């Protein structure tokens, strides 16, 4: 097992630079999730760690060893692909054994490792089946099994759940969490789904346009986003932003031109006198457990308030909200959080 150090990592395709000097430290045994919108470079970063993309500049080290010029199979990493990428002409057993056979592992050792991985993933009944005859969830387990048998120092997951349906996604997410608990290996997981990121990660790396926006634990990112991009990306429904005339009296440190961020779940209904922000009620989404009120300020900024019960007011009426100061986020015009 080993941690991972990335220093000033750069990726260029011809003249186009897509990674702009990424620095990252991943501890041994940590579960790290790369999130960001599509095209942010999270998959490229993962593939550079895997050795499937060449490194234009900078270094990737696994443990104490720089692996820039080491073949993918010799880096001590194993990857689970979004499309599973199982070998369609081999049985489940052969799929899992393939890498070990390439490494000329003795037969009984292969057998032992495949059987034990199959037991962990509860796929021992399918070992002689071909991938074609498996469901999406089963295929995903085989793909994970193929990674486990190689006993890697670092597991790499590239959006492994995006081809599964919603209920299976929740179930497989839990299984991956359990797997990490059990194996205690370093795992790096790429997703664009912030719920997966929040639930799985010890540490989240938010990427945008080939740059790291913020690194931190899920709760740190939620409570203290470094900038408005991270604030918007983490949390669902996303954070509301108010500017200028939207805000009655801003909190300490709030000056003209700044943006005030308040999460929908932190807005508290109040009287007009105590209001921090006010808006006309446009639509209410009733979700049973809670309701989402969609509102619009006099300035025309849309925002959402998460409420325990749907408001009694009719559409078109004005509602008033406040929030406790600790829950307020102030961003300067360049998008950086003023909290520091």
């Amino acid at each position, binding site marked *: 097992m080993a941690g991972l150090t990335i220093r000033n990592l750069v990726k260029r395709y011809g003249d186009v630079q897509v990674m702009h000097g990424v620095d990252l430290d991943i501890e041994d045994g940590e579960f790290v999730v790369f999130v960001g919108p599509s095209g942010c470079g999270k998959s490229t970063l993962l593939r550079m760690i895997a050795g499937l993309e060449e490194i234009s500049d900078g270094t990737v080290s696994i443990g104490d060893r720089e692996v820039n010029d080491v073949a993918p199979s010799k880096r001590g990493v194993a990857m689970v692909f979004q*499309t599973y990428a199982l070998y369609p*002409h081999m049985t489940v057993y052969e799929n899992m054994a393939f890498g070990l056979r390439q490494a000329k592992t003795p037969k009984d050792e292969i057998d032992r490792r495949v059987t034990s991985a199959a037991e962990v993933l509860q796929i021992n009944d399918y070992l002689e089946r071909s991938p*074609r005859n498996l469901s999406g969830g089963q*295929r995903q387990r085989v793909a994970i099994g193929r990674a486990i048998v190689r006993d890697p120092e670092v597991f790499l997951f590239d959006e492994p759940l995006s081809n599964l349906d919603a209920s299976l996604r929740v179930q497989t997410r839990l299984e991956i969490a359990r797997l990490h608990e059990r194996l205690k290996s370093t795992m790096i997981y790429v997703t664009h789904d912030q719920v997966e990121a929040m639930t799985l990660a010890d540490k989240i790396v938010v990427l945008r346009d080939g740059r790291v926006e913020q690194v931190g634990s899920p709760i740190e990112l939620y409570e203290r986003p470094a900038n408005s991009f991270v604030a918007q990306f983490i949390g669902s429904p996303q954070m509301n932003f108010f500017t200028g005339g939207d805000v009655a009296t801003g909190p300490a440190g709030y000056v003209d031109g700044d943006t005030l961020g308040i999460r929908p779940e932190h807005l508290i209904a109040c009287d007009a006198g105590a209001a921090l922000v006010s808006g006309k009620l446009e639509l209410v989404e009733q979700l049973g457990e809670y309701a989402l009120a969609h509102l619009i300020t006099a300035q025309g900024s849309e925002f959402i308030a998460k409420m325990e019960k749907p408001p009694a007011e009719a559409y078109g009426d004005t509602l008033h909200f406040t929030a406790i100061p600790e829950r307020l986020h102030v961003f300067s015009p360049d998008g950086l959080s003023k909290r520091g």
Partner: protein
Amino acid sequence: MTDRQRQIWIDRAAVTAAWIAALVFFFPIFWMVLTSFKTEGQAIQVPPLLIFEPTLENYLEIQERTNYAKFAMNSVVTAFGGTLLALLIAVPSAYAMAFNTTHRTKDVLMWMLSTKMLPAVGVMMPIYFLAQKFDLFDTRTLLVVIYAMMNLPIVMLILFNYFREIPKEILEASRMDGTSTFNEIRQIVLPLAWGGIASTALLSIILCWNEAFWSIVLTTTDASTLTAFVASFQAPEGLFWAKVSAVSTLACAPIVVFGWMAQKQLVQGLTFGAVK
């Protein structure tokens, strides 16, 4: 007429047209086989005979006067040999082009295909002299090489397209699993593209089998194939229709039977079930 009735009429018309087209294509073959069982006299009779007493005399005479088996063997060796050689060159090339595509790959393919636009007769003299120089004239080896070169562009193009259907992630997964390039081709690419390779091979074999120009130009007796054999039945005194028909039937029969048998094997069994 309702829409439904109109649709029925359109369907019937289409089926009828298909049948007519099929019969038009089939008729010459049918007539060739029929004529091969007539006597020379019956063969040139006008109006043509449809009902007659079939005879095997043409076949027997060919068997007596010539060595059909030798020509057939030459056809088999050159068709399979040429195809094998073409595949040996095309598989690694198509692999390189399909999985390491650059913006010039399409140009390279087009350039290779453009050599097929050249009339074969244009390179007849140089190849003829080269064959003599290397002492390969009238040998099977020469035909094998010529046939391989002749089909290489098409074989490459088809394999390239089949290989590109293999999802890239599968090859990346095998790279993560530590396969060498050779093993990657042998254990991943070839099994996955097997159906495509088999049908490409079949096409190449048929093209080689039916090739006449080079066989006639570059062989005299030892390495002549069945197409040259058929051509040799054009005697100066004129054509013997019944015998030529019998010879042609003998030349076509093996490849038709082979194609019919292989057809069932060629149904692409492997769907890429592991990738959604």
